[in-house]
């Protein structure tokens, strides 16, 4: 959620903080957006198994640039020297209010356990059709701890739907976005992956791959995408650093990641639907060269290769309940030349790797209740300088290894009101099970219970 985190850390340390804030345990801004519902005349359940999980119709809606509409518009057709206009009569605005309570098994030393945030976050959306082929998901979010609004996930698309390739339908378009994988159609990739909501007060593991939220809202990207024959989805995007709140042109001094040149992102996925079975398998990744705190000099390089899958089974005999299984594996290889050369160094040596595995199984009782169990694991190269020792947030012997589980129950009494109870447990945290921070804290001390109410309107 917060891109600001990246500005206060350098080199490898950035990914610790960014991961902490954004991914595995950062609050996602993802959800069903009512302005889409107002635009299409369809309920949230038309696009979502449970927000933000997209079903086939939701994926198609996003693929086609958020433009499908059944409501009145102001329009003029294209003529000889006149451009066309297709403008929704109602500005597509939406709002979300999140309030939450978090308690950890062991209080963070010196702090009061049981954090009640009212709100945890408030988001405003400009989400809907801007024209017949252009639409947006654009979000700004107020963060209670930062006490200000900041730009959040954004995906602006221009889509063409009349293409043909080898006699089959080709949907194609452009995406401008600020978070690698935010343009994705499935919930097995980081930006829209599980957990769909999460605490921003409990300690969380510090190591994470750069594609797993490390660049969220800290980059600007332009890319092209295509879906052929409703089966093959291909995306290519290039990103540049775009540091919110920092002066432009970028001099690099503010921030831990300064992309040198451009960072390419790729995505290839195959999806198929047979009867009540809906399946996707794919790969994604990116390559980033960055200089911490500067725009010249030595470079750190990161290459992330990832695979993912998603399977949904609709069970007509059980009132169309849906079983979902998702997973992703990310392999990151990094060459931290700049971090090693920094004064003082922020990495002990050049070559590192990080393996991230996440998976979850979910049962949807209609659109009212979704229960999920998720497992996660991060393992990688130990480096006491990159992953230093410190109370609560530090690592044991420089190890980035963490693993644990998440139980989640989300109840939607109405499609725009969500109540979630979520338990996160750790069997290993920042390299250890017991006394991982060398200050007496155990991994399970960071186990947390999180209660959240979301109001969407």
């Amino acid at each position, binding site marked *: 959620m917060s891109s600001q985190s990246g500005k206060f850390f350098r080199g490898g340390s950035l990914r610790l903080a960014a991961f902490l804030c954004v991914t595995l345990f950062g609050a996602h801004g993802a959800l069903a957006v009512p302005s889409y519902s107002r635009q*299409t*005349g*369809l309920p949230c359940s*038309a696009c979502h198994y449970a927000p933000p999980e997209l*079903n*086939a*119709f939701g*994926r*198609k*809606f996003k693929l*086609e640039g958020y433009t*499908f*509409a*059944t*409501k*009145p*518009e102001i329009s003029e*057709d*294209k003529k000889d020297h006149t*451009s*066309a206009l*297709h403008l929704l009569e109602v500005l597509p605005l939406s709002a979300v209010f999140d309030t939450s309570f978090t308690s950890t098994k062991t209080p963070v030393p010196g702090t009061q356990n049981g954090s009640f945030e009212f709100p945890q976050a408030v988001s405003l959306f400009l989400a809907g059709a801007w*024209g*017949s*082929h*252009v639409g947006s998901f654009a979000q700004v979010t107020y963060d209670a701890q930062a006490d200000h609004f900041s730009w959040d996930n954004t995906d602006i698309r*221009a*889509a*063409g*739907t*009349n293409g043909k390739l080898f006699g089959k*339908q080709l949907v194609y*378009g*452009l995406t401008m976005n600020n978070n690698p994988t935010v343009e994705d159609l499935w919930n097995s990739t980081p930006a829209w992956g599980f957990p769909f909501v999460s605490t921003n007060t409990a300690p969380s593991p510090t190591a994470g791959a750069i594609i797993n939220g490390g660049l969220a809202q800290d980059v600007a990207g*332009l*890319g*092209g995408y295509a879906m052929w024959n*409703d089966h093959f989805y291909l995306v290519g995007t*290039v990103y540049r650093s775009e540091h919110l709140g920092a002066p432009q042109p970028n001099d690099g001094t503010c921030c831990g990641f300064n992309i040198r*040149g*451009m960072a*390419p992102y790729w995505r290839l996925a195959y*999806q198929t*639907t047979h*009867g009540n079975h*809906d399946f996707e398998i794919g790969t994604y990744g990116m390559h980033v060269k960055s200089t911490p705190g500067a725009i010249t000099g030595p470079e750190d390089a990161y290459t992330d290769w990832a695979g993912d899958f998603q399977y949904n089974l609709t069970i007509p005999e059980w009132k169309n309940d849906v079983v979902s299984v998702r997973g992703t594996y990310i392999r990151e290889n990094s060459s931290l030349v700049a971090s090693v050369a920094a004064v003082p160094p922020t990495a002990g040596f050049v070559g590192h790797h990080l393996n991230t595995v996440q998976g979850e199984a979910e049962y949807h009782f209609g659109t009212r209740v979704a229960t999920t169990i998720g497992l996660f694991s991060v393992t990688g190269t130990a480096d006491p300088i990159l992953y230093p020792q410190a109370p609560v947030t530090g690592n044991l012997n420089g190890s980035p290894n963490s693993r644990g589980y998440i139980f989640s129950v989300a109840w939607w009494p109405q499609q725009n009101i969500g109540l979630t109870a979520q338990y996160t447990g750790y069997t290993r945290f920042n390299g250890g099970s017991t006394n991982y921070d060398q200050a007496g804290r155990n991994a399970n001390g960071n186990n947390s219970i999180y209660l959240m109410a979301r109001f969407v309107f």
Partner: protein
Amino acid sequence: MNAKLWYLVVALFFICPSWLAAENDAASLFKSKCAMCHAEGGSGNTPSGKALKAKDLRSQETQSKSDAEISEVITKGRNKMPAFGQKLKPDQIQELVGYVRRLAKK
């Protein structure tokens, strides 16, 4: 490599907009408003159509309905199909009714 990527970005930025203009004949209307679920041929055999249980427009069930009944479904919606009465003009809806009829003959 980076220079090539710059060229790509500039090209993407300027190449796009030939598709930005909408068309309004029946076939285009059907493609933009209906094919998302019902498929271009009307079969309903799309992932979206399966998700929303879209009807096969070529089927006896659909084709046995009168023009007025089909027009009413398009105008007011039914089950998970949204209403298009506020979006489309009456003559556009009639064009779509005619197009649905032609699907059965293809």
